[in-house]
């Protein structure tokens, strides 16, 4: 399992990847974010969760510093992730922990076979 961000010809990076960058540039490579730590930009604990989602659900927008693996262009990329628990603060450094099922497939409206359901939860380093 990887957590792949996409690099584009215009120097931008996005997670998840898209067929083209926000400026219309083509993909030129990927970066596996699961090999990096990240910084919490903001977080929330959701207490009213939809079917198939743990309750409470701890979520964060985190930012990965990827300057070690890119030569030019953008050097950071953000992701929305689950946290292992709500014991975090903005600015904390967090690392990924693989989880087989972030959400129960088929419990909600989304067709189970239309996407994958495993991924990473993040916890303070």
């Amino acid at each position, binding site marked *: 399992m990887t957590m792949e961000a996409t690099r584009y010809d215009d120097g931008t990076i996005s*997670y998840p990847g898209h067929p083209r960058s926000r400026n219309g540039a083509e993909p030129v490579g990927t970066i596996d974010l699961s090999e990096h730590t990240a910084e919490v930009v903001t*977080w929330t*604990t*959701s207490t*009213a*969760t939809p079917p198939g989602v743990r309750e409470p659900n701890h979520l964060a927008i985190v930012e990965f510093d990827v300057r070690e693996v890119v030569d030019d262009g953008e050097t950071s990329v953000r992701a*929305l992730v689950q946290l292992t628990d709500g014991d975090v603060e903005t600015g904390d450094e967090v690392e990924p922990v693989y989880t087989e099922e972030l959400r129960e497939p088929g419990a909600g409206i*989304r067709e189970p076979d239309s996407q994958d359901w495993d991924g990473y939860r993040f916890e303070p380093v």
Partner: protein
Amino acid sequence: MTESDRVAVIGASMTQFGQREEWILELLAEAGLDCLEDAGVDADEIEHLYVSNMTSGEFEGMTGVMNALAHDIGALPAYTQRVDQTSSSGGAGIYAAWQSIQSGASDMTLLVGGEKMTHRTTGEATDIIASITHPVEYKAGVTLPSFAGLTARHYLERFDAPRESLAKVASKNHRNGVDNPHAQFRKEVDVETILDSPIVADPLRLYDFCPITDGSAAMLFCPESVAQEYTDEYAIVAGVDGATDTHVVHEREDPTVMGGVVESGQGAYEMSGYGPEDVDVAELHDMFTILEFLQMEGLGFAEQGEAWELVEEGYTERDGELPVNTSGGLKSKGHPLGASGVAQGVEIYEQVVGEAGDRQVEADVGLCCNVGGFGNCVITTIMEAAR
């Protein structure tokens, strides 16, 4: 439509918002027929009929609502189209109706927005709405309220804004809703109650969120030359524009800027010739209290990070410099997805033609901003009183 014609609104209506026994087709027909009656126009005069609706298929198992509505209200053989732009379906319907008149394709266009939601559990409704999200967002279990919690925390921390300022948005809009006979909640709620209510998406609490709602609203559009055959009191669509921001919310450069709000606002200002300083009253998409701040800033009513100060000063109160959400907003009036943008238009129409009753403010120019998703798509409309 003559060359000098402008697009006019000659009628408007909204049903009672809240928990209704009626299903989607009945709600749409109620608002549509009330609107025609308000304008004194017969159904067989309708050339285009647009229905703003996000999820009747998912919520009720009822699709094809636009054709069904044309039949139900006697508008055959009008051209019909359903407009789905998630929570901004209503605003997108205004844009579609404006285009139909402006292009000359129609001389009488009825727009009806509606949604039936309350028969579903909160979890089911939340999941249906969250189905707009990207697979990586969906599997994380994100909901629209949790986007609001993430954004609110970032805003409060970055701009050193007090938590109470968000509660004051909710309190103001509930106060305004008391005077709206169609609002879901007509009850004042004080700041202390809001701050003591259960956490939904930390730091936001129950009263920072709009309710789940059934309801419908309608507007009738025609060229100004046709409007004058029916009435002296009508509104003009002075400017309207729509824009799209990233589908994936965390990919935005600045989490406190909604690009769709900025872009659609600039487009509507440019078309109308008005600027933020000319707007006398505004309906903003307060699905969550934090959105009122982001739209005030995106539309140029406040500098970035300073909207909360205006709310603290009473600038957006009904007797303030810029009354915001005189209808009670989505917060108090309710948020039947496809109807909400149309209901915003109804409020601005009533304000500029002087039919807002106890909610009336002094207004020649009004603006409404309808947000889809968490800023994924936005429509801004500016209306003015006919002169």
